[in-house]
């Protein structure tokens, strides 16, 4: 993680040189260079080469760079790892995780490649993706299976197809997995990342979904088009009220530290660790948004 935020993760098809070149200009916190579902079988090798070269030569600045590799259970997974890991992406997105072993296997392979290439062990992080009923059931074990994991994501289409749910715009069929993702992520201390909103022309629908995701506890959402980025960022921007409360919390903490006071209180109420964590997160989100006056959670 570079900015520490993952409000938006922008999918970029790995076989499109121009999009790879410009992936970071749209302001997403994170980009996902995709070798998996966006790439047809016949394009797998060329996309892999392109993404490898993009990682080698393009400066993505403060944007977190992740690569969605193919699952190790496929023909392409192993080779994706061999080409991509030496280029030191910030993380790999590991699709179709169904059991802790899927992550462990990837972790071991990454360790091996890091060692071979003189890369500090543990540099490349893992973000598992849950895309099946089995993955959903094993979720907590999966997110606790590796120290490399810094976030967890799910694939709405694959997941609903697997559980036999009907996909709707309202997305009630995802209530269960969304709740599970957030809870598991909190237990593991990693980011909870929401799936994509497919209708790129419906920015109101996107905003509502992203706003709901934030209220549920998600840290961000994947996006499939650059124009979705500002909408999701708006949804993930705290309100003025939240920001000023967070500021006061942090101020009280600093003050207490200076006074070496063990008990921290604000307006007569005790401040405990989770409140402080939340306050720091809100300030980070507010600063990333670059403005203070147009919060949405008033």
């Amino acid at each position, binding site marked *: 993680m570079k900015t520490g935020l993952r409000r938006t993760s922008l999918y970029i098809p790995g076989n499109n040189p121009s999009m790879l070149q*410009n992936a970071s*200009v*749209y302001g997403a916190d994170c980009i996902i260079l995709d070798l998996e579902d966006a790439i047809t079988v016949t394009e797998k090798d060329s996309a892999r080469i392109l993404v490898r070269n993009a990682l080698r030569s*393009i*400066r993505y600045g403060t944007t977190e760079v992740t690569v969605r590799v193919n699952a190790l259970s496929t023909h392409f997974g192993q080779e994706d790892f061999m080409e991509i890991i030496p280029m030191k992406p910030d993380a790999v997105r590991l699709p179709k995780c169904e059991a802790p072993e899927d992550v462990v296997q990837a972790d071991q392979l990454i360790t091996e490649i890091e060692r071979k290439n003189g890369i500090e062990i543990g540099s490349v992080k893992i973000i598992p993706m849950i895309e099946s009923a089995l993955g959903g059931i094993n979720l907590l074990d999966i997110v606790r299976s590796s120290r490399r994991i810094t976030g967890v994501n799910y694939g709405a289409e694959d997941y609903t197809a697997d559980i036999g749910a009907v996909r709707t715009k309202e997305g009630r069929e995802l209530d269960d997995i969304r709740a599970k993702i957030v809870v598991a992520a909190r237990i593991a201390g990693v980011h909870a990342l929401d799936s994509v909103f497919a209708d790129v022309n419906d920015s109101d629908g996107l905003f509502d979904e992203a706003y709901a995701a934030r209220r549920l506890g998600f840290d961000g959402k994947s996006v499939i088009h650059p124009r979705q980025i500002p909408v999701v960022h708006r949804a993930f921007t705290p309100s003025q009220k939240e920001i000023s409360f967070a500021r006061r919390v942090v101020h009280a903490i600093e003050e207490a530290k200076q006074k070496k006071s063990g008990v921290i209180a604000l307006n007569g109420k005790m401040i405990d660790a989770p409140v402080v964590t939340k306050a720091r997160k809100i300030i980070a989100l507010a600063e990333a948004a670059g403005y203070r006056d147009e919060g949405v959670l008033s």
Partner: protein
Amino acid sequence: MTLDKNVRVIPDTLPGIKNVRSFQAGATSSLAEMPRTPKRCGKIVSTVREALHRAGIRDGMTLSFHHHLRNGDLVVNMVLDIVAEMGIRDITLAPSALFPVHEALLRHVKNGVIRTIQGSVNGPVGQAASHGEFVAPVVLRSHGGRVRAIQTGDLHVDIAILAAPSADQMGNVSGVIGPSACGSLGYAFTDAQYADTVIAITDNLLPYPVTPFSLLQTEVDWVVPVEKIGVPEKIVSGTLKITQDPMRLLIAEQVARVVEESGLLIDGFSMQAGAGGISLAASACIRESMKKRGVRGSFISGGITGQSVDMLKEGLFRTLLDVQSFDLEAVASLACNPNHVEMSASFYANTAAKGCVVDMLDVAVLGATQVDTDFNVNVNTESDGVLLHGIGGHMDTAAGAKITVIVTPLFRGRMPMVVDQVITRTTPGNTVDVVVTERGIAVNPGRKDLLDNLRGKGLPLMDIHDLKKMAENMTGVPSMPPFGERIIGIVEYRDGSIIDVIRQRV
């Protein structure tokens, strides 16, 4: 002897009258001294050949054309085919612009019918120029510069050919009706006024008088009805769609932000933006900003699109000043909305006129094929050094507008667009204020006032040298294309001075 009651005693001298001549009813001798042919009720001739013959066409003459029929134009090729058939050679072509459809002219360049071009060369004809196919260098002028050159005699037009979407027998011409309707005929006005002979070619001859008329019977010598002057679907497009390309949209949004923070987005605001992808999207973003802020602008000028028409209807602008109508909505609006006004190229952009529209512009949003670190802009030659584009109103609007914004991606393909030195200098850096790319915005250091307005507003402001370095970090430093010694093109600034020359590609 009975005195005719109509006879009047007229003295030989009268105060204030230089040469006193007595009126004589029916006499032709006095009328013969009038400057133009008397009482011309019909100017129709049956063929273009006949009209050219009556115009006294001969070797070495200059023929002018206007480009409102764009890529649907059939007139330029038709006329030059006939000129060739007539055995005429060494013609200087003076079009306000050419399009890919005019590639057919190249055989007349090869066979000596066309000697050179003065005005604008584009596409395949430009390519041919770059490879040295013209006998004399082509002269490139802006829309305003072309008018100035014609008016001053720098460019003398022997025969002006008007592509007339509708005309009557006296030579009144309308651009808004007829199967080849193109809207404004703004670029043709000066040609009609200054050419020795003016021929209107039409595929829609209407009973006298045709209205609303733009080009006038007072200037037209001959009218030639033909079957077809244009291909409608290639003349004007349907509604021009705003680009979906996220990169272009990003640049467009940044332009709107610059305009918002410039201090100019207040009541009375005026602007010009082209019909290119980024420009059109930038207009759309500025439109939203105006709505949000409740700003009522004064005018949009230049090439007019359906989007400009919508902004007029929404009350965001009071007036459209139209030198060229880009789409069907613009044509329809020009025909019926009194606040949508046709303007001549002189009115629009002529620096030698007693006042032109570009000088009243707040903001001009313009494209570029290259910009250099001194803010000079190239719009003529591509990165390979080949002459591909005309100037249009680029240098005119840049010189006039309070803020000239150049929009360009930082690189196209593998070529950086911000460079040390442009291959061809079209628009001088001192008339360019801001360069907006997807990765950063550079403000001309000469515009400290603007820089002060834009600072601290969350815009990605950068020194243009840093922008250049950023591009080169991605693409490497391109080498200059290989040029020979021979000059194949001359870029004339709007005041008639020479701002650059273009050499032959080898």
